[in-house]
C-alpha cells in the first residue's frame, strides 16, 4: 500500500482540513460542562474516598475503608442536618490511577471532598490535582510525607487524622540518646518514607550526643533481612533503629529473632514495623516485648481508643490497625467541621479554615490538632508489643509524649530551612547550636 499516490495525498489533505475546521469549531464553541462540587448548603454532602483496595497495599487500603465506614455506622451519616454520601474508588496504590479516580469522583460523582489516598506518591499526585482544583477539599489521613505540611504544603489538602513520617521518630532519637546509647545503627526502607523515618531518629539522636555509626537501607520488598542484620555487630553498637513497612515488616521481625539479635541488642522501631496489620499475621512470640514509637497504640487505655477498638472488633472481628484509626479520625474530623459550620460548607475557604482549626480531644490516637503549617500535633507513644488477654498481639503504651509537633523541639523556621530528610540529608550535622531550638536544647550543644 503506497500512500505516496497523489490521490491518496489529496484525500489526506481533505480529511485533515475537515479535521482542522472541526477542531477550530470545537475551540470556538467548546463543550461546556459544569464541575460544581457537592458542597453548597443544602442536600447531601458528597465525599469521595480514595483508598487502595487492590494492588500491593490492598490490605491497608481495606483497613482504611473499614475505619471510614465504621465511624458513619456508629455515629449516623447525617451531620448538622446534612447527609454524608460516600463513594469509594480504588486507587490500586498507583499515582496515575489515583488521579483518574479523583477526577472521576469530582466530575462524575460531583464530590466536593476527597479522603485519602495512602502512599506518599499517590498523595503527591493528588496534591498536584488539588492545587489545580482549589474548590475541591482533600482530607489526607494517611499520606505521611513530611513535606505535605512542611515545604510543599497544598492549602486544600488537609491532614485530618494523618501524620508526618518523621514526627514519631524524632522523640525516638532523643529517647535513645537519653537511655545512654552512644552508637547506633539505622536500618530503613530505601525510599522517601524510610529516609524520613530514619532522618527523624538520626537528627535528634546526634543532637543528644549519639553517633550514627552506620545507615543501612533495604529495598522495598526485601524478603531476606539476614544480609542487613549480619552487618550489626552487637559488641560495637548500643542499639538499632529499624523502620520497615507492609510485607517487609514480618520478615524483619522473624529475621531479628532467628539471628538471635532479640534480647541481645536494644531495638526500637517506627510506627509501621509493629503495626497491628503486621502483628495480626504473626502467630509466634517473636515481636513480644519489642518497642516502637508511633501515634497509635491499639492497647492504649484512653476512652477514645478503647471505644474505637471495641467497636471495630465487634464489627470486623479483629483489632484495628492505624490505617483504620486514621480514616475513622478523618470522618470524625469532617463531622466536627461540618457541625461547627452548621452544615453550610459552601464557602471552601471557610471550610478549610474550620478544618484547620479542628481540635479533637478523644480520637483513637488521643488528642489531635493541626499546627500553623497544617502539620499534625498528636501524642507520640513509646509502645511495647504484648499478648492481650484474648491471646492477640497488640501495642501497649509504655510512655507518652504529649502533643508532639512535626518540628519537635526545633524552631519551625530553622527546621524548614533544612531540606526534607533524604538519603543524603539525615540531619546528623544539624543543628550545631542552641539557636535552632525553641525549647529543651540538649546538653552539650553550643550556643
Amino acid at each position, binding site marked *: 500500500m503506497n500512500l*505516496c499516490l497523489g490521490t491518496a495525498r489529496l484525500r489526506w489533505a481533505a*480529511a485533515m482540513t475537515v*479535521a482542522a475546521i472541526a477542531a477550530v469549531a470545537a475551540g470556538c464553541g467548546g463543550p461546556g460542562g459544569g464541575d460544581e462540587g457537592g458542597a453548597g448548603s443544602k442536600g447531601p454532602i458528597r465525599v469521595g474516598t480514595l483508598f487502595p483496595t487492590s494492588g500491593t497495599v490492598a490490605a491497608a487500603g481495606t483497613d482504611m475503608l473499614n475505619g471510614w465506614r465504621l465511624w458513619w455506622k456508629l455515629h449516623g451519616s447525617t451531620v448538622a442536618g446534612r447527609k454524608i454520601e460516600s463513594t469509594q474508588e480504588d486507587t490500586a496504590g498507583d499515582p496515575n490511577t489515583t488521579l483518574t479516580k479523583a*477526577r472521576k469522583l469530582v466530575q462524575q460523582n460531583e464530590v466536593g471532598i476527597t479522603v485519602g489516598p495512602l502512599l*506518599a506518591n499517590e498523595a*503527591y*499526585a493528588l496534591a498536584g490535582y488539588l492545587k489545580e482544583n482549589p474548590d475541591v477539599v482533600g482530607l489526607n489521613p494517611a499520606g505521611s510525607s513530611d513535606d505535605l505540611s512542611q515545604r510543599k504544603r497544598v492549602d486544600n489538602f488537609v491532614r485530618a487524622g494523618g501524620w508526618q513520617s518523621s514526627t514519631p521518630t524524632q522523640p525516638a532519637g532523643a529517647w535513645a540518646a537519653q537511655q545512654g546509647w552512644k552508637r547506633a545503627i539505622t536500618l530503613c526502607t530505601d525510599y522517601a518514607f524510610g529516609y524520613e523515618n530514619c532522618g527523624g531518629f538520626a537528627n535528634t539522636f546526634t543532637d543528644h550526643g549519639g553517633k550514627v555509626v552506620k545507615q543501612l537501607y533495604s529495598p522495598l520488598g526485601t524478603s531476606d533481612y539476614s544480609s542487613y542484620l549480619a552487618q550489626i555487630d552487637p559488641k560495637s553498637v548500643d542499639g538499632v533503629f529499624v523502620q520497615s513497612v507492609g510485607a517487609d515488616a514480618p520478615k524483619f521481625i522473624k529475621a531479628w529473632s532467628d539471628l538471635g539479635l532479640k534480647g541481645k541488642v536494644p531495638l526500637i522501631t517506627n510506627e509501621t514495623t509493629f503495626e497491628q496489620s503486621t502483628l495480626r499475621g504473626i502467630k509466634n512470640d517473636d515481636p513480644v516485648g519489642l518497642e516502637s514509637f508511633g501515634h497509635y497504640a491499639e492497647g492504649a487505655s484512653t476512652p477514645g481508643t478503647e471505644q474505637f477498638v471495641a467497636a471495630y472488633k465487634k464489627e470486623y472481628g479483629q483489632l484495628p490497625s492505624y490505617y483504620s484509626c486514621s480514616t475513622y479520625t478523618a470522618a470524625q474530623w469532617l463531622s466536627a467541621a461540618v457541625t461547627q459550620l452548621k452544615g453550610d460548607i459552601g464557602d471552601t475557604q471557610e471550610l478549610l479554615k474550620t478544618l484547620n482549626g479542628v481540635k479533637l480531644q478523644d480520637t483513637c490516637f488521643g488528642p489531635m490538632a493541626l499546627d500553623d503549617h497544617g502539620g499534625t500535633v498528636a501524642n507520640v507513644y513509646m509502645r511495647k508489643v504484648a499478648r492481650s488477654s484474648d491471646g492477640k498481639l497488640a501495642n501497649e503504651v509504655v510512655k507518652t509524649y504529649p502533643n508532639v509537633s512535626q518540628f519537635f523541639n526545633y524552631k519551625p523556621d530553622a527546621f524548614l530551612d533544612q531540606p526534607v530528610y533524604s538519603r543524603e540529608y539525615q540531619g546528623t550535622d544539624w543543628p550545631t547550636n542552641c539557636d535552632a531550638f525553641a525549647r529543651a536544647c540538649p546538653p552539650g550543644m553550643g550556643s
Partner: protein
Amino acid sequence: MRALSSRVRAPAAGRSSAGRTSWFKWLMLFAAVVLALALPYGVSSFWIDIATQALIFGLFALSINIISGYGGMITLGHAGLLGVAGYGVAILTTHSGWPLGAAVAAALLICAVASVFFGALVVRSRGTYFVMITLAEGMVVWGIAQRWGELTGGENGIPGIPKPSFALLDWQYYYFVLAAVAVCTVLIARLVRSPFGLSLKGIREAEDRLAPLGYNVALHKLIAFTISGVFAGVAGVLLAMYNNFIGPSDVFFLASASGLLMLILGGIGTLTGAYVGAAVVTIIENWVSSYFERWQTLLGIVFVLVILFAPDGIVGAWTRHVWVPLLRRLGAGDEAAAAQTATASASGVGLIAAEDRAPSDFRGGVSATEDARSHTTSEPTESDREGARR
C-alpha cells in the same frame, strides 16, 4: 556501508479494483475522525479523561509497535524512554523554570539521545537477550527516578507539571492530545509503509537473510529503536502534562509490560491495534473497576480469551472475521488478501501462538523479504524461522 534501503521499492499495491473499497476505507477513517472530534460534545468529562488517557497510552503502545510489531524486537523497557521525556519536561519546567514549549522540545531531544544510547547497547542482540537488555535499560531509568531524589523527587515523583495555556480544560487538552496523536500516527503509518518500514519487516521475518543482502541490520534496528523511543517520549510528555505529575511507577517495567500487553490485546503489528488495546485496558482499569472489585481478574480473563481465540488481537480478529469478508463482498479480492496477509504476518512476531501457525501464514513475511530483493526462492524453513527468532 550501503545506503539505507535506497534500493528497496515499496510494493505496488493492488489498487486496480480498489476504487470502491478505497472510498469505503476513507469513509471509515472519516467517520473515526468525526467521532473522535465530536466525542467531547457527547460524553461527560470523565469519559473525555478516559479517552485522553487511552490516546496517550495508545500512542505509547504504537511506539512499541514500531520495533516489536514491525521490527520483531520485543521490548520491556520502553516506559524508561517515556520516562526520560516525561521527567525531562517535569524537571525543566518545575526545577529550572523553562517555558513549556522549550522544555518539551528539550525533553524530546534528551529522549532521542537516550534512545540512541539505549538502542546502541541493544541492537546487536535478539530475542530473549533483546528483551532482557531493554528490561535492564528501563530499570536503569526507574532506578534513577527512584533514587536520585534531588533531581527526580524519588518515590514521591514530581508534581506541578504545567499544561499548555491553551489546553487547560479537560476537553481542550483532549483535542490537544488528539491532534498530537493524529500527527504521530500518520508519521508512523508513513514510516512503516516506507521502504525503511519494509526492510524493518524483513528484519522481523528473516534477520539472517538481510545481512548477506547488504543491509546494515544493526543500523536499521538502531534507527527504528530511536524513532520508536522518540514517539514513546511524545507519549511521556503528553502523560506528564495530563497528570501534572510523573513518578517512578510511570517508568517501572510494569508500565512497559502494560504497553506491550495493550499492543498484543489490540493486535500487534497493526496501527489501530495499539489504540484499541489501550482503550480496552484504560476502560477496565478506570471505569469497570468502579463497579467490579476484581477488575484485575477481569483484565486477566480478557487477556487469556484474546490470546486463545484471537492470537492476532482484537484488530486481527476483526480483520479476519469482519473486514476481509466485507471487502470481499465489496468486490476487492486483492485488498482483502493484502489485509489478510498483513495481519497474519504482523502477528508472526514470535511472541504468541507461533507454533499454531502454518508456514503459509508467513506469506506476508516472505513477500517482505522478497520486496527487499531476496534472491531466495524457497519457502522459509523451520530452521529459518528459528534463526529469525533467536
